[in-house]
Each structure stands twice: as C-alpha cells, then as structure tokens.
C-alpha cells in the first residue's frame, strides 16, 4: 500500500459514491416492492418523491465516475516514479494484476451509470412510469459494478509493491512482445487504417439510417456496430492514432495524449469517442421499450436524436484522431 494523496482521494471518493449508490439501491428495492401506480396512498406518493432522490444520487455518482477515470490514470502516471521499471501510467497499471481490470471496470461503470440516467430520463417522459421495475433492477447492476470497482481499486493500491519490476508501455506496446496487445501494435498500419475508416463510414451510414427511419434492424445493428467501433477505436488509438500524435513510429501509449505536452488532445478525443459510442449503443438497448404503448413515441424520438448525437460524436472523434495525420509533417509510410 502506498499512502499517496491521489490514492487516498480515489479511495475516499469511490467509497462515498459506493455508499450513495447503495442507499439509492436500497430505496429502489423498497420502491419496486410497494409500487402501485394506481394507488393514491401517502406511501405511493412518498415512493414517487423518492425517485427524485435516487436519480440525483446516481447523477452525482456518474459525475464522480467520470472524474475518477481521469484521476485514476493520473494517479497511475504520478506513482510511476515509485515503481521500478515503470515509465508512465501503463507501467504503474501493470504493477499488479489489478491495475488494468480496475480501469476497465471504471469504464464499464461509466457506461452503465450513464445508461441508467438515460433510461431514467426516458422513463420520466412517460406519464405512467413504465420502466420503473427495469430501472431499479439495472440500478442493482450499477451497484454491483461499483462494488467490484471499489474492491479491485483497493486491491490494486494495496498490492502495489515498489520493488517488483513492472513492464511499461515500451514493453507492453512494443511490436516485439508477446500477447494480444503487442500483436495489435505490430499489425501493419495501412490495412488497420483502411479498416478503421471503413468501419467509420459504415457507422455513419447506419447512423443516418437510424436517424431517418428507426427501423428495428437498423437500431440493433447500430448498437452492435457502436460497441465494435468503441473497441476498434481503442485499438486504433494504440495501434496508429497515437503514433501521429507523438510523431514517433514506436510510441503506442494510449494515456500520454492526456498530457500537457500533447495539448490535452486526449480529453476531447476520448470524450467524443465515449459520447458517440454511448449514444450509439443506447439506441439498440432501448429498442425493446418501443413495445410499451406509452413509450413508443418517446423511444422513436430518442432514437432519432441519439443517432444524431452518436454521428456527431464519432465524426468529432474521427476529426481529432485524423488531425495530426493530415496537419503534421510526420508520415508512417
């Protein structure tokens, strides 16, 4: 365990958020048990009022999750000097087997809590709370993920041992290494770029189709594509986008672009990617709710709008990612 300000703030913050969501989930369970929309009892009224508290709690939790992803990466970056062999955040995250899983779970927690808020938003638009049960079941899932996140994060910081040599991005993202990540970085760049941009083209076409018609097949497809595209983009960042930002043919780190040296370009880049993929994925996730009579017009409208957000997000992402390829002199081939 290292007693470091960043570590303390992450643990305190995650602990608080966990407590808030635990409380919200307990309320949620109580509400689903006694919920009766037809009743005008005082109890039902107090349930309806508690839904406001729950959504406020989850909204605050989501804001912290966003802060926490960056704080976590930054803390990893900051403690690299304490670890033998670590030269940046990647090295610190590799210090034990909990580093990267913690980061992944944080990203999942972000998506799931954002999804909860989006679904809650839709539910609030209907007059009969059609999604109340689904919503509070999903809240339990949010809670489970936050618990996992808290445990993984705690384990990661507890088990950091400054004397064990870790492998850094130089090794992890190098083309000579073994394993999945290395084979990704070793992939030939031109085909990878072609693949990436084709996928982007398909996404945009599909997004426009969803925006126009909201047909079931389109929306589901778009969701799947958004998920694939999210993963593909992270790979693309490691495999070639980062190279253009760093102007180095071998530097594959996905975190360094968050640094001042690269004009914090990573922030808008990841923000656009996360927003675009999130709305893209949500479009298919809410498709089943169309069947509920009071939700049909709400879902149709949401899909139309979210398809637009997704397209905009992805285009912004692609523009930022391509900017150094076009504007800077550095060329890979």
């Amino acid at each position, binding site marked *: 365990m290292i007693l470091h300000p960043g570590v303390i703030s992450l643990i305190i913050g995650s602990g*608080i958020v966990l407590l808030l969501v635990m409380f919200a989930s307990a309320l949620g369970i109580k509400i689903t048990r006694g919920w009766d929309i037809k009743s005008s009892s005082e109890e039902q009224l107090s349930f309806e009022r508690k839904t406001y508290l729950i959504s406020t709690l989850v909204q605050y939790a989501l804001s912290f999750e966003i802060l926490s992803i*960056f704080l976590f990466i930054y803390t990893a970056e900051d*403690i690299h000097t304490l670890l033998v062999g670590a030269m940046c955040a990647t090295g610190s995250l590799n210090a034990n087997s909990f580093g990267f899983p913690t980061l992944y779970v944080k990203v999942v927690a972000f998506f799931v809590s954002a999804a909860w808020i989006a679904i809650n938003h839709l539910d609030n638009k209907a007059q009969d709370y059609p999604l109340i049960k689904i919503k509070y079941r999903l809240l339990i899932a949010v809670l489970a993920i936050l618990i996992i996140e808290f445990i993984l994060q705690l384990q990661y910081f507890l088990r950091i041992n400054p004397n064990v040599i870790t492998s850094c991005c130089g090794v992890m993202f190098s083309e000579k290494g073994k394993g999945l990540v290395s084979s990704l970085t070793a992939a030939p760049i031109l085909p990878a770029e072609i693949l990436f941009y084709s996928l982007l083209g398909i996404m945009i076409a599909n997004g426009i189709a969803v925006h126009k018609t909201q047909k079931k097949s389109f929306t589901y497809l778009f969701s799947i594509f958004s998920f694939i595209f999210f993963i593909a983009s992270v790979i693309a960042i490691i495999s070639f986008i980062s190279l253009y930002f760093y102007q180095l043919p071998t530097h594959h780190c996905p975190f360094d672009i968050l640094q001042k040296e690269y004009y914090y370009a990573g922030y808008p880049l990841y923000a656009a990617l996360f927003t675009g993929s999130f709305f893209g994925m949500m479009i298919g996730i809410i498709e089943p709710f169309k069947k509920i009579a009071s939700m049909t017009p709400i879902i149709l409208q949401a899909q139309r709008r979210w398809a637009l957000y997704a397209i905009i997000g992805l285009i912004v992402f692609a523009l930022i990612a391509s900017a150094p390829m076009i504007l800077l002199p550095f060329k890979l081939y």
Partner: protein
Amino acid sequence: MALEKHRNILDYTLQALLRRKFKNIGIILVFTFVIFMLSSILFLSYSLRQEAHLILQDSPEIVVQKMRAGRHELIPINLEKDIRKIPGVSSTEPRYWGYYYDSGAKANYTILGIGTAILKNNRLLNGRMPLPHEKNVAAIGRGIADVRIIKKDIGSTLYLQAADGRWMNFNIIGIFESDSEIITSDLIIISEDDFKILNNMPEGMATDLIVHVSNETEIPTVAKKVKEQFPDSRPILRDEIIRTYDAVFGWRSGLIITLFTGALIAFIILAWDKATGLSAEEKQEIGILKAIGWETSDVLEMKFWEGLVISLTSFISGLILAYVHIFFLGASLFAPALKGWSVIYPDFKLTPFIDFYQIATLTAITIVPYIASTIIPSWKASITDPDTVMRG
C-alpha cells in the same frame, strides 16, 4: 431553451444566496480553511518533489560509495581506473563533500570541495565559484549568508574550524540564488585542496565516486558489475534516489492528509447539519416556488447550484490562500513537518508548481464529500408539498 432554463435557475440561486449571505458565510469560511490546509500540503509536497526532480535530473547516473561495517567511508581514488574499464562507463570523477556543524548558528551546512566537477545547474547570482586549487575562497548559499549572526555578503570572510582545531578563513566570492533553494541554501563550496585540509583527508581518498553512463538502459548492468568487482562498495542509482524521494514525499503528504480526514469528517457533519437546518423562511420560500410552478427537479437544481457556488467559492479562495502561503510565504505554517532534514529555511522559496492532477485530487477529497453530504437534505427540501403554502 434548455440552457436558458438552467441559467434562470442559477440566476435565482445566486440572488437567493446573496440575500442570505450571512447564513452561508460560516460554512464557506470553514470549507475554505479545510481546502487551504489540504491544498497547502499538496502544493508543498509536490513542489518539493518537483525541486528534487529538477536537481536530480542533472545528477550522475551512479554514485559509488565505500562501505565498512555498514557505514559509509572514504573511497580510494584509484578504484576509478578499474571502474572506467567496465563497458558502458563513459567517465568517472571523485567527489569531496561532507557536513559542517556550526555551533554558533546551531546549523548544519553541507560542504562541497570542488575539483573539476562544477555544479552546472546552479546559477550564481553574485560572484563566481572557487577554482579547483584556489586557496581560502568560498561560495555559499543564501541561507548561510543570512543565518550567520553578522550578515555575510560577497567580500566578507567566513571562518570555519578545521579538524585539528585551527580556524580557517574563507573569502566569500559567490552567493547562490538559485531557483531551487532547497539544495543550495545550506551549501558551502570551497576548493578541493581546502576541503582536504579542513577535514584532514588522507591523500588519494575521496568521499565517493561518480560514474557517468551514456546509455540509460545500461545503468543497472554497470551498477551490478561494480558491486561484483568491489563487494565492499555501494553503487547508488539516480532512479533509486528519485524513487526514495517520491516515496517519502508522497508518504508524508498522504499521512498528513489521512490525519486530516478527522477534520474533513467534522466538516462534513457540519455541512450536513447546515444543509438540514433549513430556516422556516427558506422552507416557505421553497413551498411558494413549488406552488407557483416550480417542479421538484427545479428545486433540486437550485440546491445543486447552491452547493456548487459554495464549494467553488471556498475551493478557489482556499486554493489561492494556499498558493500564497506556500509560494510567497514559504510554507511558514508547516514547513518543519515536511522539510524535515533541512535546518536552514528562513528564506525558503519554492518554484510554483501546480497542475490539473492536484486540482482533481483536491476536488475528490473536498467537493465530492461536501456535495454528497448535501444531497439528502436538498432532496428533503425539494419535496416540500406545494399544498402546504395554501395553509399559512
């Protein structure tokens, strides 16, 4: 449209806060103080660490010391020849340094005897450095210049007692005024020859040896070879020193922050209490707002803005105060706790160092708990039944 709505509610919130400024002044003061303390700790430890990094950047890759019975002892200079033969070593140099206790000022100085090695990264504001064989001259740190009973300046004389009890006098020819005072403020630099006389050092010995290695990646290998060839030596790697520094700084500030959580919890309880204790007037105001057409979520938003305004006001004032405290007032409140080893720190000036990360960390330990503690009271206020205002 949606944006205007939020602006309108924010406008109203600001107006309401100004109407009730005295109610919130207490919480803002306490919150400011909490943030001031925490950010002072963070600023201080980070800039100390930054200073250390700055200095160590130019320091030698490896320092070789000789050990006997677990203690550091003088090293024979002729080891240099053998070390230079190790592949990867580009050059070596002997160093002469030690400490000097000044009983008059009750302070410990660091004394460095320079041969060919010059501290490249230290700028002399006034004067120059002693030459390797120049007699009876010295360059001293600002800290020493000020701490001595009679203020020393260029041209005056410094007296030091040698190992055999004789007093040696040194003409001050330079005073350090560097960006990173932490290292130079207690430093005295004299020539190698004077150093040997002052400390009665035997010929052919040095305090330690520094070894330059041109290729970063070969440093551990070189260190290993040195250790193999001279089992009684201790090679110290620069990276290891950086690591130790960082661990100490991180650990100390972490420890203080942990101790500080007690205060933080007290503050959160206060914030909770303050948020729960709505005055009758405020309660009625919320009832009126709801009766005339505000929705529960609008009141919640108002409460959110209120929390944000209070925490941002406190956050920014706390931050500014801490900045002034650390970088202009020399961390006068708790420098002794964090600096520890240095005896001389009257004029301790740190280079301002502050970044995103520190701000994010501070946000996570101050604003997050504060906002969390106000959620439930805010919600309680927001669900006020509009019907109640119909009855007085």
